[in-house]
C-alpha cells in the first residue's frame, strides 16, 4: 500500500515534527520488557478533533494513526534496548492489515514484540486489539540512522526520543513501583 506508507513516513519524519509539537499517539505503557516486548494502550475519545473529520457522523480511528501508535510503542521498545543511544526511525511498514474499526469510547491495545534488533536496524511484530478483540497486525522495520545512512550528518542530539516519549516510560516505571509498594 504505497499511499499509506508515504503518509506515515511523512508523519513519522522527525524533521517535520517541531520540538514543541505534541505527537503522542499512545496514552501509557502497561507492559515493558526491555528488548523484547512492549504493550501500550490508547483510549479513544470524541475530544480528539481528528475523529470529527474522520468521518463526519461516523468517527473511527484512522488506520494511519494506529500504525503511528504501533510505531511509537515499538519504536520506544527498540530505542530503550540501546539505552536511547540510537536515532530510531520508522523505515518500513512490512505489513499493516486491519480487520475492523475502533471508535470513541473504546480502548486500543498495541502489543509490540521485537523480532530482531541489530546494530543497524530492528524488526518488530505487532498486534492491535480494540476492547480486547483483535483488530489488526502492524509489522515494522526501524533503522538506526547513524549506522545506516553514512555520509549524511544528523544532529548530535537524539531528536527522535524527546521528553514526551521518555516520560511515557518513566510513568510506567513509577506505576510499577507504586504497584509493588502496595503488595
Amino acid at each position, binding site marked *: 500500500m504505497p499511499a499509506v506508507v508515504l503518509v506515515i513516513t511523512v508523519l513519522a519524519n522527525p524533521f517535520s515534527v517541531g520540538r514543541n509539537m505534541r505527537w503522542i499517539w499512545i496514552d501509557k505503557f502497561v507492559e515493558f520488557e526491555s528488548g523484547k516486548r512492549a504493550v501500550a494502550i490508547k483510549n479513544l475519545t470524541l475530544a480528539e478533533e481528528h475523529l470529527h473529520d474522520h468521518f463526519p457522523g461516523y468517527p473511527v480511528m484512522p488506520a494511519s494513526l494506529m500504525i503511528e501508535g504501533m510505531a511509537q510503542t515499538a519504536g520506544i521498545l527498540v530505542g530503550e534496548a540501546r539505552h536511547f543511544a540510537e536515532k530510531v526511525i520508522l*523505515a*518500513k511498514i*512490512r505489513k499493516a492489515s486491519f480487520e475492523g474499526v475502533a471508535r470513541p469510547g473504546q480502548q486500543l491495545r498495541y502489543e509490540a514484540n521485537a*523480532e*530482531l534488533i*541489530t*546494530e*543497524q*536496524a530492528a*524488526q518488530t511484530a505487532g498486534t492491535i486489539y480494540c476492547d480486547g478483540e483483535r483488530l489488526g497486525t502492524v509489522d515494522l*522495520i526501524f*533503522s538506526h540512522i547513524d549506522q*545506516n545512512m*553514512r555520509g549524511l550528518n544528523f544532529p548530535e542530539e537524539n531528536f527522535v526520543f524527546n521528553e514526551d516519549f521518555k516520560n511515557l516510560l518513566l510513568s510506567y516505571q513509577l506505576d510499577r513501583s507504586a504497584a509493588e509498594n502496595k503488595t
Partner: protein
Amino acid sequence: MAMSREDIFANVRDTLVDALAVEPEEVSEDATLTGDLGAESIDFLDIVFRLEKSFNVKIPRGELFPDDLLNNPDYVANGKFTTTGLEQIKKAMPHADFTNFEKDPDVNKMPELFTVKTLVNYIEGKLAA
C-alpha cells in the same frame, strides 16, 4: 536433505514477493532488485532479515551486499572501481555475476550486480557451507 536450486529460487521468490510487493512472475533470475523490482535501500535490510528467517541462516552485515568498499579511494576513483577495487568486490561477492559490470565498473551500475540470481547463488553457497 539439501535444498535444490529450484527450491531455493522458489523460496527467494516468495521472500521478494512479500518484501517488495511484486508479482511472482516479475521475479526472474535476471531481475535486478532495484531496477526491475523497485527495491529501496531499507528493503535490502528487510530482504536480509527475511532470508535469514526463511533459510535459517545468519547473514553478517556486508556479506551479501558489501557496503564498505565505496568509501575507499584505492578501490573507487572518479566514480569507477579501480583494478584493485574490482578485484576486491569480486572477492567480496563471489555470488554475483560480473560479466557485464567488468566492462564498465561504474559505481552507479553497482545495483545491476544485485539480481535475484545473486541472492540464489549466495543462499546456495551458504547452505552448502
